[in-house]
Every structure is written in structure tokens, then in C-alpha cells.
């Protein structure tokens, strides 16, 4: 066996990959057609799981083959390979489908309506592009991912709707159908939406992001701040316009059945699988023409027109040159006389403005509600990454690809889904952009914009070569690369000429700015100091403290070990005090409340621990916390659900151990294809994985358990120690807590969570302080230097991912037990990943104490503001007067102040009963957003910043240790 392995290892890497890919393909083929091969012989899997495993096997084999083939391509063919990759992957997918269907003796019919696919593709492309263009512009100039972009789009939509309701324009919107299209309202709405939204973008930039820039905040901090801004904006829109949907109607004639172009079309029918007498492809007859409504045309034309204008501004005007200069190097731009802040303002205006224009036009097609933006934001991120972050031409190509892919995948999914008893499969169309993106990043890790850039550079170089007629041997030699150099390295070696360096710097600097800012010398950044009296007097001191002289304060430097602990204790005790003060009616409900808070803080604490390990320590921006949590929760639920309701009937403890292991393995495996990706690419891959799992929970029947009819969701699973607890322990606990009856299960859960958190905390702190923790920090600070020191970056990243994934899975298991059921909505990133990120940034990255404080704050804020919401309905409470006062202020704002801007109709449409009420639930959302933004503005490094550690060395070991090296680390 060992011999065989030795022989396998000496085969060159390429050939090994080739053999592996061919083997997987062949084995999968045997399995699906002839019922032979590894999967069939092992006998572990049956029916659905079997063909799923076989198709996964074949896909993996095919991808390995394609990857090997593409990486062999000459650098000059870069563009060709990037174009070929998606086509090859699509063909591979169809081939796998054909084999699986043939094996199952089923057939699938897919209808590709040519016009429908191309025009729907354009529509999706325009919708995504309206958000994506702003994202990429912010990324290019300001260098952070602006989550508020989707809300900007909505803002534009509501500007259009306000304009529609205005006294001047409402007659047009409300005019009876007369068959004559009126353009006036549409055009004014577009212009107003662009300008007003743009101005709002500038104001937000001035208020929030400018200050953060001034404090040299990292892009991650800016990003989380934009998350807070997005929450505030969404809440404001909710408060003003309510949750009902509204449509923008430029004139009723726009929606007539005749207001559409009839586009002639052809329909291709693709028959896959067990064809009896049908051809593979046929062209169907008697196809109705495709109807393209005018409103869709206006969206497509408007968005693409605006983007073309933007391109012209960027490349043909002085302003564009300034913007690109700032994007390249802000310091250099400033020293050459460019007003950097003004350029930032312009870019904020343009990115918000285009989003607003897109929103106004989209409101003519979709009913608008403040929640809408989210479903377009994540695909827009995929578009931005696909087109290489920061590249405007790239993002246009990316939007077109994603749009067409989205439209073309629907017939495939519908056809295949019906053949494989999965009619819900078309739900996966939503995540096809992510699937495609992940696949493409694995094949071409640098995105499309990079390929376009390469192609351009090659073209310019060739032209120059032709002009010079020289032999140019140095340049030529670049093309001959030694064997064994990986794909990534090849492409980076080509970067030699002068043009390259400048452009390269622009893109690389975005990626490296995260680590660069993180690694700023610590004494350069202002040391933050908490001043307070001792814990007991803390409240009094800070309220009246403004007038007390500094001498009366104890200075706590939170960046020392001791100071950090003291600050942690203060924050923790304040939060505990808040919990203690939360009102409740009885002893039982207070017990429930406290136990629930402890459990939630524990779960969120474990999630932030996991994020801290991945992002705070190792420097990988993991946006897929919920992916690993989901793996944990779903595995625990599925495995522990009774067999008669589609579960597996395991004991909870076994299920937990397996869930944690599955998640750890998933984390480990994820490292290999993704660890070489740039920070942002890694972020989008992980967020995509979370979305894929969420949609799978909706659409995949195998991920359902708990009911006999396999309804959506997982429930009825066993929870640990439930029997023991109910058979007496709960009664004892109840009497200990002074309750009348037995203590509820959540008390036990709180105890288990506390134990889990303390254990994981201890474990992680030990690891952070160990040599391995230092290696991870060095990877975060500078990967290349760390590699030069002989550390195998890949293995360390994989280990870090696996460990963090295991911790997250544990959190998922606890979460599943707390909720007693798992539904797809629990994986909504807004309520999980984004909150965890907020806790991570606010708490202080790199510091586990900060993680606990951050998680505690995020959990408690929800409870505290709920108290306010509840108090509103109750006139007995003192707060009731406050809320009626708020109502009158709000009414004054909307009716008297706002009335100067908008018409009375716009108020009566939203508040039909003529009483303007402030929705406290939405105020709560705004306040949570403000807490995030406020905490970041006041303390960008978090409440408890990372404590710089320097391991103590025993004096006796000093001379010897300097030559010691970490064992087992070597670069391959």
C-alpha cells in the first residue's frame, strides 16, 4: 500500500490530476449506467442519495479535468480559457445530467426559448447592474464593499413614487388609458431619482464614511458601518412608506397589454436521458412571439445608458482621470493637487445616483417594498466579483453573464427537476450566479476583469513589439515557464511591463489595503482609553463625568492584558445589569428570559469566536459563518429526527459529534480551492455557500424531516438530556430557582451553552497564545513573509478554517435545540452572518473577550428595544407618554415639515387613516443600525481591541530558542 502511495506521489502533479479526474468520471459513468463502481459497490447510499453522489463525483472529476486543461493553456490564451471555462462547465453539467437520467431510465425535456432567455437575461443584467455598478465604483475609489447600495436603489424607487403622487404628476399617473404613452413623468422620475439619491449618497459619505476615512479605518470597519447605514436607511424607508408594496406607474398606458414589443422567437428543445425516438435537439414549431413590455425596455435602456455615460466620464474626462488617480493611489493623487475628498464625494454621488435611477425604473416593473433590495444585493456582489472587483467594464460583462446564466438555467432546472422528482429545483435559479461564480473562481481565480486586462495588455504589447521589430528576448522569455508553477504564479509573472505595474497596483492595493491598514504600527494609532470609576460608581461617573477633572479617573489602557480584562469586566457587568433590569411579570418568565439570553449570548459568542479565528486571527474574511452554523444545525436536526418522519433517528450526542465533524471537514476542504483567493473573493465564496445551503433547505426534499409529508423545514428532532431533564431533574432545578413548577428545558440549555462557551474560549485562548496562534497572526499580517519563513500557509489556513467551522457547527447545534425547528429563513444572512460581523467588529477583532461583549450587546439590544415596542401598547407605562410624544413629533415631521416636499396624497396613501404613527419596530431597526455606526465611529478598533502579545521566554532558553524552528512546516 505504502509502495503504491510512493509511486503515486512521484507522478507529476498535472498527470496526477489528469488521472484522478479521468478515474472519477469513469467511476461515475460506471455507477450511473451499469450500477458498478465505488459508490454502487459500497452499498451505503440508496436511491436519491446515490445518484446525487454519482453526479457530484462526475462533476468533481470533470472539473478537475477542465482545470488541468485550462491551467496548461499558454498565458497568451488567457482570454480564450476564461471564455471556454463556463462553456465547458455547462457542457459538463449537461453531460452529467444525461448520464444520470439514462441510468435512472428517465427523460427530461428542456425548452430554450431564444428571445425569452436573451431578453430576460438582459432584464436581470440591468437589475443587478444598477446595484453592482455603484458597488464597484465605491470599491474602486473608496475601497470598501458598500452594503447600503441596495437601499440607495430603493431610495430612488421611492423618489419616483413620491414624484408620481405629487400634485403636478398624479394626474398623469392616474389618467385613464387612452393608448398614448406619456413620457414626462418617467423622464422626470429618472432625473430626480438620480439627483436626489446621489445627494443622499454624498450626505451619508460626509456623515459616516469621511470620518471613518479620517480615522484610517480598515475596509472591514467601513463595510460594517455601511451595514449599519443600510439598516438605518431601510428603517427610515419603512417608517415613511410602511411595509406595503407600491408600484411606480408613469402612465397607465405603460401597462397596457398592447404596450409591449412582440419579438419573434425560436424554441430549441433539448431532450436528455432515456430518449426513445426523440432527437437530442429539435426546433419546436408554432412558437408564440415573446412579449417584451415597455417598462422592461425602459429599465434596460436606462441602466445600460447610464453605465455607458459613466464609462465615458471615467475614461474621457478630467474628472474620470482624477477618480482613477485616487483609486490608484490616494496619497500620490493628493500630492499632485487632486482634491481627494471631492473625488470621494463625486464617486459617492455617481454610485448612489445610478442605483437610484435603476430603482426608479425597477419600480415600474416590480412592486416596491423596503425589503426588496436584499434579494438583489447578494447577486450584485457576485456580479462585482465575477467582473473583478473595481473594474467597470468587468462589471458590465459580469452582469450580462450572470443575467443570461440566470435566465438560461431556469429551463434546465425546470426540465431536470421534473424528471428527477424535484419540481422545486427551479428555486435554485436564484443561486445559479453563486454556483457559477464559485465554479469560475476555482477555474480562473482572478475573475473576468483580470482576463480582459490581460488581453488588453497582451494586445498593447504585441502592437509595441510589432512596431519595434526587435527580438525583445526578455519579454519573450517570460512565456516559457518552468513546470510545476501554479496557475496563479504564471499569471503574476506576466506582469512585467510598465503598463502592467500601474494597473496591477490599482487592483492589488485594494486587496492588500486590508492587511496593510491592519498592520499599521500600533503606536501610530491613537491609544484608546476607557476612563471610569470603579464598577459600582460607573454609571454616576460617566453621566456626570463630563465636568470631572481627568485626575479623578482611573485610566484603563484596553490594549494591555490587564486593562482589557478590567474593561471586559466593566462592560460585562453593565450588560448583566441591563439584563437584571429587563422587566418581567413572574419568577418563571424571568427565569425563561435570563436562560434565553444566556443561551443566545452563548450561541452568538461561539459564532463570533469562529469568525474571530477565521477573520480576526487568520485574516480570511469569512462571510459564511451561517454556512457552517447551518451545516451544524441541519445535520443535528436531520440525524436526530425520528426515522418515521424522514430522519435518521440518532441520539443527539452522536448527531452533534458527527455534525461538528462534517462541518470541520467542510471547512478543511473549503480551504484547498479557496485559500489562494484574494480576501474579497473568499468573502463572496463563503457568502455564496451560505445562500446555496439556504435555498437547498427550501428546495431539496432530502433536507426535510419532522413531518410524514416531507414539508419544508426540519423539526421533531431529539434534544440532548431531554428525557433525563423531564424525569425529575427539571423539578429539582425548579425548586432551586424558586419556581412553582419544574424548570423549563431552556435552563438546561443555558447551562450546556455556558459550559460549551467556556470550554471553547479556554481552548481558543490557549491556541491563540501558542506558536500556532502566532503563525496564524503572521499569515494575517503578511502571507508572503510568513511563507518565506517556511510555514505552509495552506495547511495552517485549512486547520484554522476547520477548527472555526467546528466551533460554528457547535453553535448551530445549540441553536437548533433552542429553536426546536429549522426553517430556511433562519439562515437569512441579515439575521445571522451580518449580526455576527457587527458583533465581531464592535466587540474588537482579535480579542475573544471583545467577542463576548459584542455578542452580548447584539443580543441585548434586541431585548431592550423590544421593551420599548411593548411599552407603546400599554398606557399604564411611563414610556407610553414618551411614545405618544414621539408620534406627535413624527407627525409634525411628516406632515408639516415633509409636507413642504411631498404632497398630501403621498401621506394619505401610506397612512390611510389620517393618523401618522411612528412604527416603533422600525425605529428599533434604525436604532440597532445607529448603535453599530455609532460604536464604529467612536471606537473603530472595537470596544476591546486586540492585545498585542509577546510570548514570555524563560531566560535560560533565550540563546537556544533563536535557532529553533517550528517543526513540520515546509513549502512544497
Amino acid at each position, binding site marked *: 500500500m505504502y509502495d503504491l502511495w510512493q509511486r503515486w506521489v512521484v507522478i507529476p502533479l498535472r498527470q496526477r490530476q489528469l488521472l484522478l479526474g479521468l478515474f472519477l468520471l469513469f467511476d461515475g459513468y460506471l455507477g450511473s449506467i451499469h450500477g458498478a463502481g465505488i459508490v454502487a459497490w459500497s452499498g451505503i447510499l440508496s436511491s436519491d442519495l446515490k445518484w446525487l453522489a454519482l453526479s457530484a463525483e462526475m462533476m468533481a472529476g470533470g472539473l478537475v479535468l477542465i482545470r488541468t486543461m485550462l491551467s496548461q493553456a499558454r498565458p497568451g490564451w488567457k482570454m480564450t480559457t476564461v471564455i471556454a471555462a463556463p462553456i465547458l462547465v455547462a457542457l459538463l453539467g449537461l453531460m452529467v445530467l444525461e448520464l444520470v437520467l439514462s441510468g435512472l431510465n428517465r427523460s427530461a*425535456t428542456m*425548452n430554450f*426559448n431564444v428571445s425569452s432567455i436573451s431578453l*430576460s437575461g438582459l432584464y436581470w443584467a440591468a437589475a443587478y447592474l444598477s446595484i453592482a455598478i455603484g458597488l464597484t465604483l465605491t470599491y474602486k475609489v473608496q475601497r470598501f464593499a458598500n452594503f447600503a447600495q441596495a437601499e440607495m436603489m430603493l431610495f430612488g424607487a421611492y423618489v419616483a413614487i413620491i414624484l408620481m403622487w405629487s400634485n403636478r404628476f398624479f394626474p398623469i399617473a392616474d389618467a385613464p388609458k387612452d393608448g398614448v404613452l406619456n413620457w414626462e413623468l418617467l423622464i422626470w422620475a429618472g432625473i430626480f431619482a438620480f439627483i436626489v439619491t446621489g445627494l443622499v449618497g454624498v450626505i451619508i459619505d460626509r456623515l459616516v464614511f469621511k470620518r471613518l476615512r479620517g480615522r484610517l479605518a480598515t475596509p472591514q470597519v467601513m463595510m460594517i458601518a455601511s451595514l449599519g447605514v443600510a439598516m438605518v436607511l431601510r428603517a427610515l424607508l*419603512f417608517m415613511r412608506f410602511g411595509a406595503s408594496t407600491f408600484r411606480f406607474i408613469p402612465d397607465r398606458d405603460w401597462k*397596457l*397589454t398592447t404596450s*409591449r414589443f412582440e419579438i419573434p422567437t425560436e*424554441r430549441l428543445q433539448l431532450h436528455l436521458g432515456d430518449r426513445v425516438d426523440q432527437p437530442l435537439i429539435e426546433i419546436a414549431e408554432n412558437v*408564440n412571439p415573446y412579449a417584451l413590455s415597455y417598462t422592461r425596455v425602459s429599465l434596460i435602456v436606462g441602466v445600460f445608458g447610464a453605465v455607458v455615460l459613466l464609462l465615458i466620464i471615467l475614461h474621457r474626462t478630467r474628472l474620470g482621470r482624477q477618480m482613477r488617480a485616487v483609486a490608484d493611489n490616494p496619497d500620490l493623487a493628493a500630492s499632485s493637487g487632486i482634491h481627494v475628498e471631492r473625488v470621494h464625494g463625486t464617486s459617492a454621488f455617481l454610485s448612489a445616483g445610478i442605483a437610484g435611477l435603476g430603482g426608479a425604473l425597477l419600480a415600474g416593473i416590480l*412592486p*416596491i*417594498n*423596503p*425589503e426588496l433590495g436584499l*434579494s438583489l444585493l447578494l447577486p450584485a456582489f457576485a456580479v462585482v466579483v465575477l467582473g473583478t472587483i473595481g473594474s467597470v467594464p468587468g462589471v458590465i460583462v459580469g452582469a450580462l453573464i450572470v443575467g443570461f446564466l440566470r435566465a438560461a438555467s*431556469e*429551463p434546465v432546472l*425546470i426540465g431536470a427537476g*421534473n424528471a428527477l422528482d424535484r*419540481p*422545486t429545483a*427551479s*428555486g435554485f435559479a436564484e443561486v445559479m450566479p453563486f454556483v457559477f461564480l464559485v465554479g469560475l473562481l476555482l477555474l480562473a481565480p482572478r475573475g473576468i476583469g483580470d482576463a480582459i486586462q490581460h488581453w488588453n495588455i497582451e494586445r498593447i504589447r504585441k502592437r509595441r513589439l510589432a512596431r519595434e521589430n526587435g527580438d525583445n528576448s526578455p519579454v519573450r522569455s517570460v512565456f516559457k515557464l518552468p513546470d510545476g508553477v501554479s496557475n496563479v504564479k504564471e499569471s503574476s509573472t506576466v506582469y512585467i511591463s510598465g503598463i502592467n505595474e500601474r494597473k496591477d497596483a490599482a487592483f492589488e492595493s485594494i486587496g492588500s489595503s486590508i492587511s496593510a491598514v491592519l498592520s499599521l504600527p500600533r503606536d501610530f494609532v491613537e491609544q*484608546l482609553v476607557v*476612563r471610569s470609576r470603579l464598577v459600582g460608581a460607573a*454609571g454616576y461617573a*460617566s453621566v456626570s*463625568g463630563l465636568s470631572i477633572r481627568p485626575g479623578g479617573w482611573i485610566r484603563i489602557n484596553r490594549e494591555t492584558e490587564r486593562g482589557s480584562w478590567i474593561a471586559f469586566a466593566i462592560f460585562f457587568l*453593565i450588560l448583566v*445589569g*441591563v439584563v437584571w*433590569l429587563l422587566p418581567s411579570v413572574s419568577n418563571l418568565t424571568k427565569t425563561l*428570559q435570563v436562560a434565553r439570553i444566556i443561551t443566545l449570548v452563548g450561541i452568538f459568542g461561539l459564532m463570533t469566536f469562529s469568525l474571530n479565528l477565521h477573520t480576526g486571527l487568520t485574516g480570511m474574511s469569512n462571510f459564511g459563518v451561517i454556512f457552517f452554523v447551518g451545516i451544524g444545525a441541519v445535520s443535528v436536526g436531520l440525524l436526530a429526527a425520528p426515522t418515521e418522519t424522514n430522519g435518521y433517528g440518532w441520539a443527539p450526542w452522536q448527531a452533534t459529534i458527527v455534525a461538528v465533524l462534517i462541518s470541520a471537514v467542510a471547512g478543511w476542504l473549503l480551504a484547498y480551492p479557496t485559500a489562494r483567493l484574494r480576501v474579497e473573493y473568499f468573502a463572496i465564496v463563503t457568502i455564496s455557500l451560505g445562500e446555496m445551503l439556504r435555498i437547498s433547505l427550501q428546495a431539496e426534499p432530502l433536507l426535510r424531516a*419532522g413531518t*410524514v*409529508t416531507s414539508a*419544508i423545514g426540519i*423539526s*421533531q428532532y431529539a434534544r440532548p438530556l431531554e428525557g433525563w431533564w423531564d424525569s425529575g431533574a427539571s423539578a429539582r432545578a425548579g425548586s432551586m430557582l424558586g419556581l412553582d413548577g419544574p424548570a423549563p428545558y431552556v435552563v438546561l440549555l443555558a447551562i450546556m451553552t455556558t459550559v460549551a462557551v467556556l470550554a471553547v474560549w479556554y481552548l481558543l485562548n490557549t491556541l491563540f497564545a501558542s506558536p500556532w496562534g502566532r503563525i496564524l497572526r503572521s499569515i494575517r499580517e503578511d502571507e508572503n513573509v510568513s511563507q518565506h519563513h517556511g510555514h505552509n500557509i495552506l495547511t495552517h489556513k485549512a486547520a484554522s478554517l476547520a477548527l472555526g467551522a467546528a466551533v460554528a457547527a457547535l453553535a448551530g447545534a445549540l441553536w437548533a435545540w*433552542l*429553536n*426546536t*425547528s429549522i*426553517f430556511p*429563513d433562519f439562515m*437569512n444572512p441579515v439575521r445571522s452572518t451580518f449580526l455576527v460581523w457587527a458583533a465581531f467588529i464592535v466587540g474588537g477583532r482579535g480579542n475573544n473577550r471583545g467577542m463576548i461583549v459584542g455578542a452580548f450587546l447584539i443580543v441585548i439590544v434586541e431585548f431592550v428595544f423590544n*421593551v420599548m*415596542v*411593548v411599552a407603546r*401598547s400599554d398606557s399604564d407605562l*411611563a*414610556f407610553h407618554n414618551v411614545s405618544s410624544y414621539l408620534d406627535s413629533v413624527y407627525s409634525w415631521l411628516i406632515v408639516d415639515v415633509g409636507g413642504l416636499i411631498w404632497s398630501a396624497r403621498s401621506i394619505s396613501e401610506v397612512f*390611510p*387613516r389620517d393618523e401618522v404613527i411612528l412604527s416603533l419596530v422600525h425605529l428599533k*431597526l434604525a436604532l440597532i443600525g445607529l448603535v453599530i455606526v455609532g*460604536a464604529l465611529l*467612536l*471606537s473603530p478598533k472595537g*470596544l476591546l481591541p486586540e492585545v498585542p502579545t509577546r510570548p514570555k521566554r524563560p531566560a535560560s532558553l533565550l540563546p537556544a530558542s533563536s535557532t529553533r524552528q517550528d517543526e513540520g512546516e515546509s513549502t512544497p
Partner: protein
Amino acid sequence: MKSSKLFFVFLIAMTSVLLVIACSSDSDDQEVIKIGLLSPITGPISQYAPGFADASDIAIAELNQVYGFGRPRGGGYEFKLITVDSGCDGTQAATAAQSLVDAGVVAIVGAACSGATLGAIAVAAPAGVPMVSYASTSPAITTADDNGHLFRVVPSDAQQAVALSVVVSDAGVSNPAVLYMTNDYGAGLSDNFELNWSDGLCTQVGYDPTEGSYDASTLAGSVVDGGCDSVVLMSYATDGAAILEALLAQGFSGSVFGADGVADATFQEAFSDVSALDRLVATRPRPGTASNAKASFESAYAEAGGSDGAIYTNETYDAIKLVAAAVVSDLERAKGQYPDSDLLAALRKIGVNYDGASGVHTFDSAGDVLGTGYEVCQFAVAGTTVNFSCPTIWTADGGLSDG
């Protein structure tokens, strides 16, 4: 230095606001009955929350008129509704339910999303607070570990699917396409329809009804390209209207069927071109024959300017009135022993042949309701006027008959 202090001040200020609230909450009045409402104010189905709020406001106003102070019948109860955000998510709903329990509600009405309901019952059941859901259709609700505390006034999808399949086959079509939402309502209805449908289905397509997540023209295209002779639509109002308009635009001329998500006269308001609505046939739970609860609620809803395109408003109204009736009967029975009363038994007692706006409700042992059949409604469009009528009914025993 300054910044940290500011944040500190902020935290302290928050704490002291809370202190004020906490200290002032002791003055509980015996006559005040607090009912909690879990509503999906944010999250994927937030657009339906205004409808739930409007319906519950009507219910509370009526209750206070009937049982309020100085009335001869009641003896003076004041009902208060505390609405919190379930976020359509188990965790947030459970936290919201905890806040309701902490505020001392006697019962909780909600939640809408099944995941939220199951999350909230994990808090409400141990606290001894019963919950009546008005929109959770998942079968998982039936089997939830709720200690008898969880009820719902929406009927199971299984029965409506039977009714719908009878209606579709009665119309003489053989090759229907099923378009359905991939949430528990749509998926449950579609699964059960498939079980009850004897012939083959032309195609079956699920979609996510969140705006911006589906493309109505592609869905319509899959029906037209598949050569289907009819469509069964399991949708809510907004997405249903978009799909019907897209079907018309692509020249689809077959019959169209729908379920209670669209079976209402107000459905036409979701259209920009009502001609797409012509000949739609849709089923919905049959209202009680003895009373006019449905008509009176719907006229009150329209009068109050209730939100358009709303769903499950009748159920919301019923859930609140049912809970209130149970609470009052419980209080009347055991005056003075309020905390030791048995609200669950009262709910079961009231929940027998309860004649509500959304049909006649009788709780079974699992807290589910058995309806009294479905009515079959149809839309007929002439020009711009829409005629809506429900001439036929379907019952489990009698099948289709004229109503």
C-alpha cells in the same frame, strides 16, 4: 479618549431609560387583558404585515365595544394588543414572544411564518401562554412539542388540495402545469395536489415569491413552451397577478386555477390590466352559513382603509376574537382566581364550531382546525369591470355542489 466616554454615556443612558420603564410597570390593572400579536413586520413577507395589523385593529376595536366598560353584557374588560416583530424567523420570533410573555400577555396570536411559530411556541408553552397562529400552514405545527398550547385557525393544505384537484378535473383539463411558491403554504399545497391528481402533470415549477427573486415571464414561458392546457397557481396576490399578466402576454389561452391566496375580489387590485384575470377559478375556505361574520369583517376592513393585496386577514381577525372570547369566558368562570384559571380548556370550549370570518373552526386534539369545505369562486371580466362570484361549494363528504 472622548469617544469611549461617549459610548459609555450612551450605554448608561440606555440603561436608565430602561430603569424608568422597569420601575413604572408595576401598576397592572385587573381589567386590562393584554393579547400579544406576532407579526412579520420585517423580513421576507413584511408586505403582508400591514394587513395583519389592520385586521387585528378591527378585532380589538370590536372587542372593546362589546366587552368594554359600562356595557350590560360584559362587566368591563379592556383589550390591548401588543404587536411585536417576528421577523419571519424562529430566533427573532422567540425573542419577541419572550418580550410579550414578560409584558404579561394572556395569549399570543401568531406567528405567520411556520418557522417563527415553532420558535415562539418554545418560549410560550413553558411560560403557560397559549398561541393561536393565523397563517402557519406547515404540517410541522400539528406535531410540534407544545404541551397542548399551540392552536391555529388556518386549515391544513391537504384538504384544500383535494378540493382543488376535484375542481381542476371537473373543468375537463388533463394536462395542468403547477406553479407554486417554495414556502410552506405553496409547497404543501402543491405536494398534496400532486398526491390527489390522478393524471400526469404537464410541468411543476416552484419559485421564491420574494420580489426580485423570480421572473414571471420565465414562469409563464415554462407553461407555454411545455404545451400545457391549464395552470394551477399556488401563489399570493402580487406574484399571482404578475404571473397571470405574463401568461396573457405570451398568448396563453388555457384555463387558470388558483387557491385561497388569490380567491378574493380584492385580487383585482394587484393587476395593472384586469383582463388577465378573466376566467380564473379559485377555491377558498367556506364561511359559516349561519352568520355574516365574513361580510361584516370585510366591509369593516374596507371601511378602515385596510391594506390592499393582503392575505390571512380574516384568519387574523378570527384568531384574536377567538382568543378574546376564550379569555373572557375563562375570567367569567373563575372570577378572582385569574392566575389559576384554565385558558387552554376555555380555548378548546370556544373552539367548537366557532363561526368566524374565515370559516367555521373546530379545534381537533392537535389544535388544528377542520374546515367545513371550500367554495369555488370565479372571476369574469367585461371591459374593466370584474365580476366575482362563488356559486359552487365543495365538501369532504358531498363533493362539488351548488352552494
